[in-house]
């Protein structure tokens, strides 16, 4: 299975040249205060993993990979583990950039703020990917893109609707109450959702024909 994770990392490495300009633009925007560094993190890790699916798809890697002795379950597992690795790496970059930005502005580093934002973004990224992967495994990348597009707009619409209807101020109280552990809770929850998504994906993938 290590070979399979390596494959995704090597694909990203080969793709890195194309990604560098995007990366530089993001960091520049973060420095200018145009967007939060955590948004960079979530965008980047989702984009990176999507690109691995896209390259797999282009050369029908999955059909080839299921003929190797690793088994289908490990193929799915490798994808999820690569995802976690990529998120950890981008988180590291995001944290470092956050620190630099704060120091650059001559402000004191607000650790709590940085880590809570980071935790929340990792949580959101995990959620998004947990939702996305089973759809990709089931319908393929092309259809999955469309489904996700509709889903995300649906969610934004629903979110907007709910914000007007429901008073969310209790959430602030909840976050305040758990403030010391909130990052850990978010990460734990995110991981749980990802594990659930993995189980669904394995079941889809075991039956899939290429």
């Amino acid at each position, binding site marked *: 299975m290590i070979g399979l994770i390596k494959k995704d990392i090597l694909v990203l490495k080969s793709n890195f040249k194309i990604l560098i300009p995007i990366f530089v633009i993001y960091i520049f925007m973060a420095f200018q205060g145009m967007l939060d560094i955590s948004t960079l993190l979530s965008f980047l890790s989702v984009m990176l993993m999507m690109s691995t699916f896209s390259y797999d798809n282009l*050369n029908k890697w999955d059909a080839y990979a299921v*003929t190797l002795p690793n088994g289908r379950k490990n193929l799915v597992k490798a994808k999820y583990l690569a995802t976690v690795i990529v998120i950890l790496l981008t988180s590291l970059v995001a944290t470092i950039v956050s620190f630099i930005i704060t120091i650059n502005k001559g402000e004191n580093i607000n650790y709590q703020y940085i880590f809570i934002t980071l935790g929340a973004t990792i949580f959101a990224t995990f959620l998004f990917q947990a939702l996305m992967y089973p759809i990709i495994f089931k319908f393929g990348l092309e259809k999955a893109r469309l489904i996700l597009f509709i889903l995300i707009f649906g969610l934004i619409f629903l979110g907007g609707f709910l914000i007007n209807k429901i008073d969310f101020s209790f959430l602030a109280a909840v976050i305040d109450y758990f403030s010391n552990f909130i990052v850990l809770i978010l990460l734990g929850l995110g991981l749980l959702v990802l594990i659930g998504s993995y189980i669904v994906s394995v079941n889809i993938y075991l039956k899939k024909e290429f």
Partner: protein
Amino acid sequence: MNALEIKNLNKKYEGFELKNVSFTVEEGTVMGLIGENGAGKTTIIKAILNILTNYKGEILIFEADNKKNLNIYEDVGVVLDDMFFPEILYVKDINSIMKDIFTKWDSKLFFQYLEMFKLPLNKQIKTLSKGMRKKLEIITALAHHPKLLILDEPTTGIDPIARSEVIDLFRNFMQDEKCSILLSSHITTDLEHIADYITFIDKGEVVLADSCPLLMDNYGIVKCNEKEFQKIAKDDYLKYKKNKYDYEVLISNKKEFKKKYDIKIIDNITLEELMVLMIKGGK
């Protein structure tokens, strides 16, 4: 021992059906799978390799069920039509990935083959020509010392010189008596050179299965005029084709035919002619 055994393989798609396909590849032999596009060759190979999951029938590789025992794929080398590593990867990346996938992956052998076929180490797969890419796929299939090679159209798209190099590589592989090959090909001359057995698939069914040398010895094409053709009993030929000036009649036993009929021109057959007559010929 059988390297591969397929028993009553059935698979249904919309507009296509694989019907009760059964055949065996004995250890130490090369089986050629022939048939026109869409006949079902790739579907059979996909079932053997677990690329398909929903089919009926039993497939045994080294006498173990292919669905229950994934370890058997340690001993199988695979070349598929158009399915491989993401082309953005570098040639050398294949080695670093595969050495963690196959326990018997032989990096030294892989690099040796690359050198032998003059394949560049530090280039992305996408920069390789079609022929070079095919060679890379074949090398990748060989570098973990497999005992069974399963090859779908391995010589398509490569020039005659590279093709003969590749065929030599397969011959070399077959020096070990425990090694076997199943290969499908449109280029039937390649099969004439290397195959011990031929299985002919048409519209999802096995229509002919025989030893390749025997087939070449016994089968023939009778060339005759209409008058002579009328005299041939229906049981004595398999198919015929009416040309502008003559008839081409496919027979399965040249010796018997010569004894029975006084027709002078009986040509030896090529697999290509056999394929064309079997598919296009009338009865």
